[in-house]
């Protein structure tokens, strides 16, 4: 295929692997996505707009966005803390901590949802402490935020860890010889180099939180206008056989996710080229 290949390779099997890969990607990924796009395009603009601007839809956008933003914020801080401690210090239990960070990745979201809702219920192990100071967690946006930050925590930690591990001590020593205080060294030298990874990880966490379903619906209470997330509303519309509304709402999440995904990739490659030279 001279049009496609840019370099000749000795290894056979290009045609087969390429064709099968493309076939698979089409069947599994592209066709369903475009199917949704086509379905949505069959709606009139007025219809589409009507669904999007419906008060209940708008409420779900608000709930989901705010909770995801809050969760990402928590993840940025806690994730940075965990990555820092695991990479830089040696203490008993470090390896266990490192392994546990991946728990949200390995645990089914429904299980996470179930246990978090019990943990933070009014009489739960942690929930009772919150109740004592007058804060309700279960059935509130706060609960949604906690569930979202549980499932997305590993993104930040795993994004920051390799960059932290790459930092050599001589750069910090150089900063010291140039008169930088420990705080200045942390903010101007270390954090500055971590920032892209931190932002990437947080953006990934945000993207995941936007679409999180299983972990949230147990703890949220799912009250329309108050604690109803977008994914749930899509599901509800599906149950009502209102495929049009469901598709319209789903398209919003889809576009947001894709934009975020490609945006993150772009920023990442740009910075890698500038800082690593290749």
């Amino acid at each position, binding site marked *: 295929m001279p049009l496609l290949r840019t370099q000749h390779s000795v290894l056979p099997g290009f045609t087969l692997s390429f064709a099968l890969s493309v076939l698979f990607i089409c069947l599994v990924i592209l066709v369903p996505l475009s199917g949704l796009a086509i379905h949505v395009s069959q709606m009139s603009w007025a219809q589409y707009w009507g669904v999007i601007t419906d008060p209940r839809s708008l409420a779900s956008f608000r709930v989901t966005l705010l909770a995801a933003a809050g969760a990402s914020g928590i993840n940025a801080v806690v994730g940075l803390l965990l990555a820092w401690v695991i990479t830089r210090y040696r203490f008993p239990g470090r390896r266990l901590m490192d392994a546990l960070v991946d728990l949200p990745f390995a645990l089914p979201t429904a299980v996470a949802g179930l246990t978090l809702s019990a943990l933070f219920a009014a009489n739960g192990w942690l929930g009772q402490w919150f109740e004592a100071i007058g804060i309700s967690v279960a059935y509130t946006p706060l609960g949604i935020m906690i569930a979202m930050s549980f499932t997305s925590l590993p993104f930040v930690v795993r994004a920051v860890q390799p960059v932290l591990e790459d930092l050599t001590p001589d*750069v910090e020593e150089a*900063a010291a*010889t140039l008169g930088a*205080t420990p705080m200045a060294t942390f903010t*101007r030298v270390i954090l500055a180099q971590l920032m892209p990874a931190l932002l990437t990880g947080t953006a990934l966490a945000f993207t995941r939180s936007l679409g999180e379903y299983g972990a949230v619906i147990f703890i949220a209470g799912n009250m329309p206008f108050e604690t109803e997330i977008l994914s749930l509303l899509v599901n509800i519309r599906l149950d009502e056989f209102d495929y049009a509304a469901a598709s319209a709402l789903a398209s919003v999440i889809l576009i947001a996710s894709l934009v975020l995904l490609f945006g993150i990739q772009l920023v990442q490659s740009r910075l890698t080229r500038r*800082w690593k030279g290749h």
Partner: protein
Amino acid sequence: MSIRVEQIQKRFGDFTALDDINLDVQEGQLVGLLGPSGSGKTTLLRIIAGLEKADQGKVLFHGKDVTNLDVRKRKVGFVFQQYALFRHLTVADNVTFGLRMLPRKERPARSAIRQRVNELLDLVQLGHLAGRYPAQLSGGQKQRVALARALALKPDVLLLDEPFGALDAKVRKELRRWLRHLHEQISVTSIFVTHDQEEAMEVSDQVVVMSQGRIEQMASPLTVYEQPASRFVFDFLGHINALKGHYDGRSWQAGNAQLRLTTEGACPDGELTLYLRPHEADLSKTPSDSANLPVKLGARSVFGGTVTLELEALGWPAEVMEVELSRDAWQALNAQPGDTLFVHPRQLQTVTCDGNLGPRVTPA
């Protein structure tokens, strides 16, 4: 700013890195700390900088005791072997970093900072790369940026840790010369660490030879080479031809080789080892009364104006010898590989029985 180091002691667990180090560096000097790895030279440099703390002893800058002074306050410029540039900052921003770390009261105006950066970048001839990032520079360029950055705050002391160790040979030579030239322009007291003898000899005003945590000798490059204070210094600098034989009071003998000389350096049983430096011998096609060392000419390598010859001892036990001749002397000799030649040492170093350096002798 003169530097004085008194009775510095440093241990890492069981390993003694520095043992009773005393050093005096005069203002404006460029001193090279030379030694093999493990000699303690980098540890000493870092203690002077304040990046490590000695277990015992004092560090004084211009008479003031800075032993417990934090590195940030010592006003030292430090250049690292792997450059340690801030990869998220441009070249210009790297150089201004120190200036921006100054407390507000001491910090110069932004225009003054910009001017200083331009001055420094011109000094290191990298003005045209001010906007680049470290990843886009070559090794030599990176090190020059590191130097400019270290000089930005006009430090009293400049410390360099194997500054050219990570660069390839040609760049190393160029930068060496360039550093020497720079030092002549800005005479700031400088100490650099290296394991490369040629580098130390070429660049330094004074060479400090170190081994196993101790200072073996501190002197000018010429002195260290011609009047080594200890066996280690002699061994470490330059190649040595070791001649082991027997001395009977009048001449040294080994197999059918003979040298007529007078010395007291022999062991009680008559064993005598002589060291011969490659450039302190001549070659001819005939022996003389004072020197009969027959050798067979082996490989020959030419570098610049010097010819280095490999010689195999004929009829007497010795390892392959190396002799350096000037190009002219070599051409006058007109010899072919395989020819029999005779070595005529101009000077020899005796080694005493307990392994120290004895007196120098001349065959006569």
